[in-house]
């Protein structure tokens, strides 16, 4: 029985890659452990080792083929003098990963301000809240380029480093290795080792060094390989960075950006999956940013680097490889502290941020098919929170579902619900609903992990519930 060689995954989140090179030719003998090919993703290059012995009977995917989906047969090994042509995989077509599936719904197109809400009825209800109009950030007809979240973040850092010699990047594997997730790719080559600094694996120490440098006026970008590891450094983030301005009576600003992937990736277990948005959201003296689209990531990171305050910039590993339209040029800024209405609607408001937007937007699409038009708001910044934009929407729709991947207790959605109750109680036709990650440490098993995270169905169900449908 011939054996298919399948396209391997380099990481749990990899969905496709490039078959860079075959190191064996058809007819070559292969022993288990032989390096038979090289594959590439935008993050890394890896060698493919044979696990079986035999003869490389057939190459199904040629050198240099892009977008080869994980688990696609790329070759066939014939065992014990089998006829290569009988190889089962030979008939199968090469299936590049479907691009559309990779890409979430396009939120960018719906940047129009919501229609004017109806005037407030009674004197006891709050005045109409004003929604932030994000259309000027990203004007219709602006020249755009499609890029991944990863590239957008890199460009933001590179542009700001060109603009200001006080900006530098430090963290584990940011320089020589080009970034553990390749977000700092090329920065060492352009800016040199004084401005792109590999640190030892000592988060507490290098966070403190970053904060100390920031107190003198330098503008460090401290990359954490993941925010899970920033737990080692959280004393410096909170006690040293966030509080010093206040404790010094306004003398000691701390212009620093702490950034890196946050929250669940895929199958990495409880210690590498924590969403810290709610933790940092709790601390005065910090600003907390959590973008969903590459355009917002770029514009917000540039604003964060220019901001004179300590910024927590929460990225997401799963979003790194996704592509979005980003305005061209190096002067695109997105203001910190402003939400964005990414899809107008009249029946229910769905609020989320970061990767939670994938569920919010997916649900909005599904709901639309059932005649429910959801207005979807991307908070983009967690602290300070643009609750005005949310309230303005709720005053129009009278219903709200808040969505996050983090834990339910004391979460961001809990805060959103409370703020709506304080400011727009009289507008509500149903209690605010929330969809969150489950109240459990992240399990490893694929089925349990899936259950632990929110999904589009949960959001659809919550939206229907608040619409009494």
């Amino acid at each position: 029985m011939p054996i298919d060689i399948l396209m391997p995954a380099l990481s749990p989140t990899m969905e496709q890659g490039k078959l860079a090179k075959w190191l064996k030719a058809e007819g070559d003998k292969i022993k288990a452990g032989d390096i038979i090919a090289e594959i590439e993703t935008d993050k890394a290059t890896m060698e493919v080792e044979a696990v079986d012995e035999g003869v490389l009977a057939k190459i199904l995917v040629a050198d240099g083929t892009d977008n080869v989906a994980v688990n696609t047969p790329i070759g066939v090994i014939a065992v014990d003098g089998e006829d290569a042509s009988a190889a089962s995989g030979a008939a199968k077509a090469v299936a590049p990963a479907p691009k559309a599936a990779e890409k979430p719904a396009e939120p960018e197109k719906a940047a129009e301000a919501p229609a004017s809400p109806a005037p407030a009825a009674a004197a006891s209800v709050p005045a109409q809240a004003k929604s932030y109009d994000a259309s000027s950030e990203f004007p219709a007809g602006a020249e755009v380029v499609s890029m991944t979240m990863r590239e957008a973040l890199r460009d933001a850092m590179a542009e700001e480093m060109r603009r200001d010699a006080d900006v530098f990047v430090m963290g584990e594997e940011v320089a020589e290795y080009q970034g553990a997730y390749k977000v700092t790719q090329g920065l060492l080559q352009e800016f040199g080792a004084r401005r792109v600094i590999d640190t030892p694996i000592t988060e507490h120490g290098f966070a403190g060094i970053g904060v100390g440098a920031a107190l003198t006026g330098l503008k460090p970008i401290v990359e954490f390989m993941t925010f899970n590891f920033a737990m080692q450094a959280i004393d410096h983030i909170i006690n040293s960075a966030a509080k010093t301005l206040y404790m010094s009576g306004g003398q000691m600003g701390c212009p620093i950006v702490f950034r890196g992937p946050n929250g669940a990736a895929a199958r990495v277990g409880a210690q590498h999956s924590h969403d810290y948005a709610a933790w940092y959201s709790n601390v005065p003296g910090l600003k907390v940013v959590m973008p969903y689209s590459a355009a917002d990531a770029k514009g917000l990171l540039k604003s964060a680097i220019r901001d004179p305050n300590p910024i927590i910039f929460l990225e997401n590993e799963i979003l790194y490889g996704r592509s979005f339209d980003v305005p061209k040029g190096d002067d695109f800024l997105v203001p910190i502290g402003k939400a964005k209405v990414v899809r107008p609607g009249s029946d229910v408001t769905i609020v989320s941020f970061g990767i939670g937007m994938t569920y919010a937007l997916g649900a909005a699409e599904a709901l639309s098919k059932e005649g429910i038009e959801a207005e979807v708001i991307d908070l983009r910044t967690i602290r300070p929170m643009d609750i005005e934009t949310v309230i303005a929407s709720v005053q129009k729709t009278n219903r709200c579902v808040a969505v996050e991947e983090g834990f339910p207790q004391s979460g961001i959605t809990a805060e959103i619900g409370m703020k709506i109750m304080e400011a727009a109680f009289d507008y509500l036709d149903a209690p605010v609903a929330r969809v969150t990650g489950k109240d459990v440490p992240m399990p490893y098993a694929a089925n349990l992990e899936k259950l632990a995270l929110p999904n589009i169905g949960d959001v659809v169900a919550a939206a229907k519930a608040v619409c009494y449908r």
Partner: protein
Amino acid sequence: MATAARKTKAGVTAKAAGKAPARAAAKSAGKGPAKAIPNVPTFNKDEELHAYREMLLIRRFEEKAGQMYGMGLIGGFCHLYIGQEAVVIGMQMASKDGDQVITGYRDHGHMLACGMESRGVMAELTGRRGGYSRGKGGSMHMFSREKNFYGGHGIVGAQVSLGAGLGFANWYRQDGRVSMAYFGDGAANQGQVYESFNMAQLWKLPVVFVIENNRYAMGTSVNRASAQTDFSRRGVSFGIPGEQVDGMDVRAVREAASRAIEHARTGKGPYILEMQTYRYRGHSMSDPAKYRSKDEVQRMREEHDPIEQVRGRLTREHKLGEDEFKAIDAKIREIVNDAAEFATHDPEPDVSELYTDILLEPAQA
């Protein structure tokens, strides 16, 4: 690495030399002058006078702060520097304008040594608007960008990484400045200290780590908390040279400080100075200090007091008369009384200050 290892050895040798006078002084105290000891640097009259005035200012200031705490004018925590004055004064005598200082919560002495105003420090202790942090920091949290004093930190050991960060900034800017990060024998056991040692030596950051070994981390003596009680050796595995210094003798402090600062300033990386010192008062105002005997404290005060040592030399070697001492003392009392007066009558911060200084406004792009 071989060079670094050799440097460490040199440091250890220097340490031994530095330690000798302390022992000798202890033995010979009361028996006669300990001046015959080699390697103790000498001060000229101006230097002695400067050290005397500066140390006395700290002493009197701290005594006044203790009184005001007792009167209820100062709240919360208040950690006095009495007994340790020679450390920060000797260090400052070897530093240059622009060099940065950062320390923990026992910080009043460091601020005065950096040239910060007594009024502003005392008014911060009383939580008034004229304080360095406008009343929002308190005893443990004061800063002066103008005087390059970076706090004032309440988390034990945090100032070591932050101080390495100040050194990093000097390295990044190549501006020839040196950062001095002070911490105690208690903080010396914190993990981040060693993370910072590693990076400081790896990148050759211009930092002097000043370990003020006052023998007690709150109520725990060095022997009960530290497997290696020779703190000058705490950088050995990183190849950072270190010395033990008689931290009660301002001359020995300045001498060692000059060596350490020169090492850091000339691009050779960090340097560790273990200052063997002693605090006369409790850890904080509420500490009854039952973990040590009254005799021990009394002996340190009588035999090693840093201010009395200078006073003795000024009397014996520079023939300073009682009237001259009285004039100096009067001048210092006037400064301290003025600060106390100011700090007592200065108003509390305006209630609007509750919501200021949380975030800075970004510059308009």
